[in-house]
């Protein structure tokens, strides 16, 4: 068979140093009596000290591959064909004892949620020491090694960490601990399954930096699984792109991302917002169609249904992994030479109306504050927030977890009452603190799209009921008029009438979010709060939703408050941006000004923390220290504990800078004069 091409091609590449060798692996799950293939004919190899990235959207089979390597598949899953060899040992043939040894000594795994990887009721020290006890050390030696292990992952105060319970540590610290445990046994193969996905951007940058530096010290091969192409591009020498259970393209990471040779990779890369792309110019593309249902093996190429280049051959003949380039790359596409020419599915440039920033603001927030009381402690979540939103514009709200983004969204729509003294106005009229006290008109005028459609849509109601209810309550429509609006709205969010009878559980994540958007637009609001509407979605779906939001905004002249932790997404969509840190607006300016500078030092760190596919252009600023707890905000400037540009005069520690306008329309909360910031930042970038 032609599938042998890849085996021949890559075996030569690594020779004797192969740590992990997956050859023509099929994994199938037995679901209610039927075998369903989840992974099909996947072959790749990882050599010593090599880092291999497995990238793909949810449902592509990445994690299944990792589980197959450690034989952690659920009871109904099995490797139904092919073989997986670790250090020359066939994983499938290992007995109980050898399998234990494999998992204890040879392969380690780090999971996405560090909080779930540690036992919450046992102190960290005990759990780390256990790794060494299993390796054969006695209790006191193991405790010593535990401390040493934490030092290796750059934990400055290992004693304190060892004496803590997992819940007392931050996510980033926990992930360090988990990595320390994974490396404790000095494994030959380290599997990292989305190790930074649950972490904030600045913390992610720290952890990625740590993993990079550890690779120098440890002689380990790494299998790095992520949905984030930029992270893989930064971390891995080689990458495999998975789609619908197949490895559609494989090769050196840089080459694959710069000259993709499979239409799926090409399409996927066009969905990721990059520098210079905006909602009206150089638009994100999207991939038409849907991922085939798991276990459904289409005849021919798995991607053919969604591929604009596909012809009869693609739907009948399954493409083997063709060697590409110098022979160390493969692509499962009959027409891999033509893949980069894949036509766009959506237009590249559209005309969008400019926001109307001369008129009075639609939303005006003054001195908005919110203090939560947690067991008699005052926890300020928002401090003196002043923001204006103008007709038809998108204000991007950026910040890490705990910055108060979501609190601000909930205060604005009236789900959380702000502190006394806060003033909120919608189109010139004051808004009551709680939604229940607001007029029907005001409720109708401002709606919200939540992050997680699974939580935001009642799972027992049909799509029709969900949208109808909003039309009835907000637009006040009934009968034929309601039905007509329903059809119109469904069309405008690009769903089809046949979706109306379905329940949310029968829809994909992207379709669910479309239902939520349709519902939010039912009452024709003037302001829409979007609370991380795409962060639960895959990139290709995210691109489609972002474009949909931009188009609807142009059509309906609605104002967005767009909340996101993802700067690239905000840059794509927002006209102006506010950066939040510990409940305070640190910088507030037009999107352009925020990205060209001068930046607030925190914005600067955020910008440099985000891995990008545009190549490592600038020196990364790694913030030291943890995000302070909002319950005990630092004195003076709240950012001074982590600020790399802190002034030596001590003013940052003692006095909180005001949010001052540094140039027209650009405000910042920093003691350093903007000209000085600009000078500092230009030198380094």
């Amino acid at each position, binding site marked *: 068979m032609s599938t042998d091409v890849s085996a021949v091609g890559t075996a030569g590449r690594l020779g004797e140093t192969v740590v992990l060798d997956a050859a023509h692996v099929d994994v199938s799950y037995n679901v209610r009596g039927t075998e369903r293939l989840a992974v099909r004919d996947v072959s790749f190899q990882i050599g010593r000290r090599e880092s291999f990235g497995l990238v793909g959207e949810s449902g592509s089979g990445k994690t299944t591959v990792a589980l197959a390597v450690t034989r952690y598949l659920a009871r109904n899953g099995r490797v139904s064909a092919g073989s997986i060899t670790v250090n020359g040992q066939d994983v499938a043939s290992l007995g109980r004892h050898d399998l234990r040894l494999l998992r204890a000594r040879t392969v380690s795994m780090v999971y996405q949620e560090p909080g779930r990887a540690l036992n919450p009721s046992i102190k960290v020290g005990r759990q780390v020491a256990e790794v060494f006890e299993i390796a054969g050390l006695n209790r006191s030696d193991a405790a010593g090694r535990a401390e040493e292990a934490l030092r290796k992952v750059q934990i400055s105060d290992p004693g304190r960490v060892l004496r803590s319970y997992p819940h007392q540590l931050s996510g980033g610290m926990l992930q360090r601990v988990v990595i320390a445990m994974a490396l404790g046994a000095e494994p030959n193969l380290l599997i990292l399954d989305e190790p930074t996905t649950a972490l904030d951007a600045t913390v992610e940058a720290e952890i990625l930096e740590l993993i990079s530096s550890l690779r120098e010290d440890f002689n380990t091969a790494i299998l790095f699984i992520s949905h984030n192409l930029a992270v893989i591009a930064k971390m891995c020498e080689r990458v495999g792109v998975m789609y619908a259970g197949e490895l559609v393209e494989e090769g050196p990471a840089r080459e694959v991302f710069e000259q993709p040779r499979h239409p799926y990779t090409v399409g996927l890369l066009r969905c990721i917002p990059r520098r210079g792309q905006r909602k009206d110019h150089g638009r994100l593309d999207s991939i*038409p169609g849907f*991922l085939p249902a798991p276990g459904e093996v289409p005849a021919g190429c798995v991607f053919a249904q969604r591929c604009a280049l596909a012809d009869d051959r693609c739907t009948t003949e399954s493409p083997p992994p063709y060697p590409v380039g110098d022979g160390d790359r493969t692509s499962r596409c009959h027409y891999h030479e033509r893949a980069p020419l894949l036509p766009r599915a959506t237009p590249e440039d559209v005309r969008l109306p400019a926001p109307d920033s001369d008129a009075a603001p639609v939303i005006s927030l003054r001195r908005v504050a919110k203090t939560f009381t947690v067991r008699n402690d005052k926890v300020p979540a928002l401090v003196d927030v002043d923001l204006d939103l103008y007709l038809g514009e998108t204000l991007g709200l950026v910040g890490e977890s705990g910055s108060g983004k979501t609190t601000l969204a909930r205060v604005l729509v009236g789900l959380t009452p702000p502190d006394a003294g806060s003033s909120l106005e919608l189109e010139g009229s004051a808004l009551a603190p709680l939604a229940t006290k607001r007029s029907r008109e005001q409720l109708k005028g401002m709606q919200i799209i939540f992050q997680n459609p699974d939580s935001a849509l009642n799972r027992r109601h049909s799509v029709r009921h969900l949208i109808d209810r909003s039309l009835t309550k907000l637009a006040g429509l009934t009968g034929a008029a309601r039905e007509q609006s329903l059809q119109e709205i469904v069309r405008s969010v690009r769903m089809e009438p046949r979706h109306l009878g379905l329940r949310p559980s029968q829809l994909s994540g992207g379709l669910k979010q479309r239902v939520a958007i349709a519902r939010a637009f039912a009452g024709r609001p003037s302001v829409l709060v979007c609370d991380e509407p795409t962060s639960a979605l895959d990139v290709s779906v995210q691109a489609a939703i972002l474009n949909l939001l931009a188009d609807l905004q142009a059509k309906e002249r609605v104002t967005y408050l767009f909340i996101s932790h993802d700067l690239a997404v905000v840059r794509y969509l927002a006209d102006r941006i506010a950066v939040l840190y510990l409940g305070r607006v640190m910088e507030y300016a037009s999107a352009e000004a925020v990205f060209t500078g001068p930046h607030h030092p925190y914005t600067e760190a955020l910008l440099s923390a985000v891995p990008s596919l545009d190549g490592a252009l600038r020196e990364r600023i790694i913030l030291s220290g943890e995000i302070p707890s909002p319950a005990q905000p630092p004195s003076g400037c709240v950012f001074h504990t982590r600020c790399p540009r802190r002034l030596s005069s001590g003013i940052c520690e003692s006095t909180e800078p005001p949010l001052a306008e540094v140039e027209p329309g650009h405000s910042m909360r920093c003691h350093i004069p903007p000209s000085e910031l600009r000078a500092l930042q230009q030198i380094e970038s």
Partner: protein
Amino acid sequence: MAHAAPRDYLAAAPGVSPDSPALLSDPAAIGLPPPASPPPSTDGGAGGAAGALDVSSRRIRREQMRLLLRSAPFIVGMVLLLWWVVCAIFGRLFVPYNPVNGSLLQFNLAPSGTHWFGTDSLGRDVLSRVIVGSREILIVSVLATVLGTALGTALGLVMGYFRGIVDNVVGRLVDAVLSLPVVIVALLFVAAVGPSARTLILVIGFVFALIIARTVRTAVLQERELDYIAAARLRDESGAHIMFVEILPNISAPILVEFTVRLGYAIFAIATLSFLGIGIQPPTPDWGADIAASYQYLAAGYWWETLFPALAIASLVVAVNLIADSIEAVVIR
């Protein structure tokens, strides 16, 4: 919850296999992608395979039904329960003797070919009384449980949704009533209004309503934190709408489980009250009352008069509990 998803640290421990069996429609557990995420949709809106990954509620229900029918405890429970239901409805048509009027000459007869379960001290056929005795207890227990579930669900929804003072006041009231055994509460009631089937239904229904309200309240507390409730508030829905149209359909599983579990308790409580003489009243054939009438003759060796009604109670309670457990295992994941 006892059914929490397997946590990663279990898998992370070297040499420990997570080995969680893949449950029915929980795609995460079977390693398939969650139904939420896979098919990326498109700007082109070119349609596609929504529904290809069929996790519709009808499908889930069919799946649950099939799992139930495959579970031996459920089948055993169902067979037993159906037997007693048949006895309750048609028992009078096929009993070998008149269950109420016995032959006074044939009292305290041991089980034999003519009287399989023997006769009691009044000469009534025990088998006939056991068969017919299922009627009253089944009617009363089902009605009481239905009443308790309906009241308890409403109360739990109000407590969980409004919280605050309503929750506190009702919550303490529940605690107060539940600190007394059902039997004592029932005694007080019966002393006040006199024994009757209606009193029994009201008493048991009332006490169960309080217990069920607690379970429902907990379920509501989890639901009300979800964003669909916030979305409903933001379109100015009334409290009643949110409770009964938004929340209620989402907590039907725990309510169903609670109903079946409570039915078992209701049967037991009614039998107890009848035994104490304040439940179902003679001459209506009733297992509890029959045991009460006969247990003093145990010492004289007339064991059959007590044993068979006792076995009847036990079999019915066990049957209902088997069904309840099977349903819980299937419905609550």
